[in-house]
């Protein structure tokens, strides 16, 4: 009896020692084809494009609602820009903003159950509606040449811009403010916030209807959906829009493309691995760098403003409208990571004054200094 046990043990030991050890999980980056025994050495790496599946191979990524909202803003801005050649209506803009009747009251080329207005940072929906009134008013003067106190058109090369009487290009202000109060706010302060991240990550929402993702995965995807980039960004930059476009615009200055995309990929991958520490590290990278990206764009436009000052009034007012709107977006940053409070943003926005015709180089430099110091740009 004793002898046979020893014999069995010996055979077992021999058999074990003969097996080649290594990582046996095909999903691991160091999967060893020859391994016969898993030795716990498997390493996992995030994929290089935004594609994630569950264990059965079902796609778990879904951000159709965000894409629809990006499409809505595209068409809303396209309509707003027609104000350069014809009077436009604030109520059409409002219908598009609220997606009245599921098709922007007939003004969208598509139907959608989503809308921009209900996802907007609540304090600023009326502000945005006010901008619709302002651009409609300015467009009534589309046939006039703009000057200090007179709404109308200014051109530079092949570009045409519509300005209000106080030199503000509202089509840019509207686009950026909605990018901020809806896309940026939803991404950073809603979907990546604790309350949307500390949710279920074990159960698929509704597999019968193709919703194979957990609530947490879906929230993270919704944040990504507002980034406006293809799933293989930044190696592919075709079709980038809104934040994707402005991320790319400052990439050379702050390396934002790979920084942000990598954080989205690794954060999402960490969720599939249920690794909350890595997820949190990456959402922090996203929140901090999205805010920095906003400030970097404001600085980029301020720099352009310094070069156009006194030489190209049309371009100057255009880039000031952009800079003003980008500074204003900082207010939508999450409480836990923001470098400026809304009160501080108010003060900085206030330095632009209410009439861009009256801006001085000192104003521009003062605003720029605050941003470059705060954001280490």
């Amino acid at each position, binding site marked *: 009896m004793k002898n046979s046990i020893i014999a069995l043990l010996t055979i077992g030991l021999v058999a074990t020692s003969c097996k080649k050890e290594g990582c046996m999980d095909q999903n691991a980056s160091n999967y060893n084809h020859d391994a016969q025994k898993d030795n716990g050495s498997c390493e996992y790496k995030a994929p290089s494009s935004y594609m994630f599946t569950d264990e059965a191979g079902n796609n778990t990524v879904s951000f159709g*609602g965000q894409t629809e909202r990006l499409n809505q803003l595209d068409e809303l801005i396209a309509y707003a820009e027609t104000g350069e050649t014809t009077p436009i209506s604030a109520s059409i803009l409002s219908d598009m903003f609220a997606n009245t009747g599921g098709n922007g009251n007939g003004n969208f080329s598509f139907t959608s159950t*989503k809308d921009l207005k209900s996802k907007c*940072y*609540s*304090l600023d929906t009326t502000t945005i509606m006010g901008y619709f009134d302002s651009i409609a008013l300015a467009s009534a003067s589309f046939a006039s040449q703009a000057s200090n106190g007179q709404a109308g058109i200014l051109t530079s090369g092949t570009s045409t811009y519509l300005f209000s009487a106080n030199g503000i290009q509202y089509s840019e202000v509207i686009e950026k403010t909605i990018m901020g109060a809806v896309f940026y706010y939803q991404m950073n*302060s809603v979907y990546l916030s604790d309350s949307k991240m500390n949710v279920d990550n074990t159960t698929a929402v509704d597999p019968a209807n193709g919703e194979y993702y957990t609530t947490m995965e879906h929230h993270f995807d*919704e944040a990504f959906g507002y980034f406006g980039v293809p799933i293989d960004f930044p190696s592919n930059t075709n079709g980038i829009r809104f934040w994707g476009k402005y991320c790319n615009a400052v990439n050379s200055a702050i390396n934002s493309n790979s920084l942000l995309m990598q954080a989205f990929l690794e954060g999402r991958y960490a969720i599939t691995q249920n690794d909350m520490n890595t997820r949190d590290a990456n959402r922090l990278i996203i929140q901090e760098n999205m805010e920095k990206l906003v400030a970097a764009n404001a600085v980029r436009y301020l720099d352009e403003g310094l070069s156009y000052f006194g030489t190209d009034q049309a371009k100057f007012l255009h880039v000031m409208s952009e800079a003003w709107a980008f500074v204003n977006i900082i*207010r*939508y*940053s*999450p*409480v836990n990571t*923001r470098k400026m*409070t*809304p009160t501080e943003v108010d003060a900085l926005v206030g330095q632009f004054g209410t009439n861009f015709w009256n801006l001085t180089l000192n104003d521009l430099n003062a605003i720029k200094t605050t941003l470059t110091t705060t954001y280490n740009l």
Partner: protein
Amino acid sequence: MNKLISTILIALFLFSCKENNKDVQDYDRVPMLTNIADNIIIPNYEAMATDLNQLKASLDSLNANMTQTWLDSVKFYWYQSYSQWQYCKVFEIGPASDYALRSSMNTFPTDTTLIESNITSGSYTLGSLGNIQAIGFPALDYLLYADSDANILNRIATSANFRQYLVDVVEKMATDVNLVLTQWTNSYRNSFVASTGSASGSSTNNLYNALIFDLELIKNAKYGIPLGKDILDVARPTYVEALYSGISNHLARENMTSIEDVFLGRDLDGNDGVGFDDYLDFVGAKRGAEDLSVVIKNQFSNLETEMMSLPDPLSNALSTNYSQIDNLYFSIRTQVLYMKTDMSSALGLLIEFDSNDGD
């Protein structure tokens, strides 16, 4: 061989001696429901009815005599009733929920424009949905505190519509509370106690949901919205409860005590009867190494300390002591975690209200 068997047996025995938590279903919920109905809910509604009757009587005297003494008296009973309301609002189940008592008694911020237009026209249906922001304690807070005593007395002397509006608002409150109280004492009390299960729709589950919902209301309505927690911490000082009288923190403290009372099964005289804490102890609920009931009790005591140290009025403190109020908000959130997440899983109760805000 024998040794081996005895070792195994001892091991098995030790295993079975390990703390044996009793099953949730073994708990007799009748004493808890009886205690809460008879010693907490009904006496609080009775006290509420009495306070409102006194408010009504003093208001009648004010309208008849139009003196500072009677105005003081009205304000005193308003304060008394509003404080007492904090002990009733948690019971938004059964009759109270049928009459939407919480909304009609205490929807804030109140709509001062609507109130004034009601007074001017003298024609209104206070029970209509459209007037929900023009009635209840917040309307009285505005009518009795937004102006100086001298001006209010002058208004009482000169405006019959103003006098009538005060009377109508108070009478509606008294009527609603009496309706709810009567239903409790007539029939609802018995069916409440007789529903002894803990599944969805049972008294225990309903009461538990009402308790957690009300705790979250303190967090969100009394502090979260004024702190601007939903708008990136941009404070909204005019959204506080009792904006004009400035007793917001006092009311929040009373509300928290009322939730503690239900949790402990503590009656109006402070006697600790059977409550949710005993239920948790029965099933041996733990958080870490500590009894969950003790963790929750300690958090109530932390909350009391924090709430006592908040300066009044809250509307000013939002700019002078924002972070202190913010800390309180997070302490309440911690208590929500204990009472919502830990307690529901320990007692097998279901949270039935939805705090999800969609896609």
